């Protein structure tokens, strides 16, 4: 019986959120007195997979079938289910990503498992009662969920678990085959289109985010947001009205009906802080608000604030970051 961890890879690299998931999984394994095995999906290299030893993974299973490079729900579900069967896994851990949620929900039915998504802490296993804490009400609350099933699947929210790094430890990489057929690839993508990211940082994975609202006045001013983001190594984001009028693409829209983010640092520029916006960002560790209106509701949710004009303040911040060296 080992804990099974689903590791997503992209372009040969393990995603940051999957390093967190691997760390989570190995700590759950420790709690249950067993080891953690990973099943890797996406395009991976053996060297990168072996490095998952640093996150406490003992063994990594990898199916080199080329059609598994892109996400295919049918095939991934079958692959992970087969790995869970082989490892006799009672607990499966994956990222609360678009892939994790899509495959985790199918898997929970196939394996008759209890599923908790949006998980933010390690589980408690008290007297046979298995409880996890998850975010609820769009980040406005938490719920302790009891998973009653014999098997459990946990989808871990990004940036809620610190990734372990035990330098030098390696995992054993084994090839694995789930004997996939053409039918398993019925929902394979016809085309994959990647979007341009500021400074190459993906918003859902980012640990720093610089975000702009209607106070930025227009798309021609976004260079101020981008300059600060580049200097910090941050991703850029925006409020809903900004993407509604196409100043910025939809995939940058954060909030209740957009992407939920929980970076270490969220800098909100010219955003009022409506409750629906806060819902998507209020689990960020540190929130900075720049707004010329001292009454803007966002200041109530902020750790640091500047009452001022974004057009004056943002260049000063970018300059100060550059001076840090």
């Amino acid at each position, binding site marked *: 019986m080992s804990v099974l961890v689903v590791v997503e890879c992209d372009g040969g690299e393990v995603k940051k959120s999957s390093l967190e998931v691997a760390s989570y999984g190995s700590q759950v394994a420790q709690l249950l007195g067993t080891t953690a095995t990973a099943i890797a999906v996406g395009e991976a290299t053996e060297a990168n997979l072996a490095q998952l030893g640093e996150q406490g993974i003992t063994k990594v299973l990898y199916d080199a079938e080329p059609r598994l490079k*892109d996400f295919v*729900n049918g095939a991934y579900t079958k692959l992970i289910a087969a790995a869970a069967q082989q490892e006799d896994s009672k607990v499966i851990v994956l990222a609360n*990503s*678009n*892939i994790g949620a*899509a495959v*985790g*929900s*199918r898997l*929970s*039915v196939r394996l008759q498992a*209890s599923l*908790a*998504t*949006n998980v933010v802490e390690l589980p408690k296993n008290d007297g046979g009662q298995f409880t996890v804490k998850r975010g*609820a*009400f*769009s*980040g*406005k*609350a*938490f719920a*302790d*969920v*009891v*998973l*009653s*099933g014999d098997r459990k699947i946990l989808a871990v929210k990004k940036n809620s678990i610190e990734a372990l790094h035990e330098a030098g430890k390696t995992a054993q990489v084994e090839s694995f085959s789930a004997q996939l057929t053409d039918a398993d690839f019925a*929902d394979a993508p*016809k*085309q*994959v*289109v*990647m*979007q341009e*990211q500021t400074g190459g940082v*993906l918003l859902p994975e980012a640990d720093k985010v610089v975000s702009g609202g209607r106070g930025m006045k227009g798309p021609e001013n976004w260079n101020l947001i981008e300059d600060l983001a580049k200097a*910090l190594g941050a991703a850029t984001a925006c409020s809903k009205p900004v993407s509604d009028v196409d100043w910025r693409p939809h995939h940058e*829209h954060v909030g*209740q*009906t957009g992407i939920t983010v929980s970076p*270490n*640092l969220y800098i909100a520029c010219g955003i009022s802080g409506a*409750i*629906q916006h806060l819902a998507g960002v209020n*689990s960020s*560790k*540190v929130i900075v*608000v720049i707004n010329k209106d001292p009454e803007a509701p966002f*200041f109530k949710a902020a*750790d*640091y*604030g*500047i009452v001022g004009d974004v057009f*004056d303040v943002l260049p000063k*911040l970018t*300059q*100060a*970051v550059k*001076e840090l060296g």
Partner: protein
Amino acid sequence: MKFLVCISNVPDTTTKIAFTPDNKEFNKAGVQFVINPWDEYALTRAIELKEAQGGGTVTVLNVGEADTEPNIRKALAIGADDAIRVNAFPKDAFFVAQQIASIAKDGGYDVILMGKESIDYNGFQVHGMVGELLGIPTVAPAMKLDMSGNTATLEREIEGGKEIVEVNTPFVASCQQPMCEPRIPNMRGIMTARTKPLKVVEPVGDAPRTEVAAYALPPKKEGVKLIPAENAGELIKLLRNEAKVI
């Protein structure tokens, strides 16, 4: 083409969240409930596709007790043809998925649409469970949906991009922006909604697989530290030396 659109009944997006004194349940007192905002995309897109095809039906489905009927009527006013309510409190995602799958199996629906997730429990689970229970593909989360005959072309959001996926009916999709502009009911819609059929059925299936032991609110923030705009650069030093986030 027969569309089945699943809607959930959630606290209005401006609601301040509070719980009952034992922290076991959401405190509904004084709270206005709305159609889950994500589900409005599913509903409107189904109506648009039906109109474009010049035929077919849109059925709305809600798992909920009688107090959800005003929002079911609202969905009918927006343009759905008929509605089904499974008369049960939605205990967990699996329980809800079982109800949807059971209705879908008997109803011969071609396309099952729902929102990406509900804004209260944020499960992001029901779509996949329904797909697996019925043995049909799920596309989640979908940002675009077009139909040509029995083939659907969807844009699925992935981290950092999107994928174009083609599936044949029947299938399940969970919807999100920017799929369409959600519609609001007009006067004629509100009048006709009153006479459209709303069938109430009893729940099926096994026990739920998860249970909420307790809810909690996040700890209160300590209060904002303000930095004068003239010394904006000071903020960066604080973020490095005090907050240690850069």
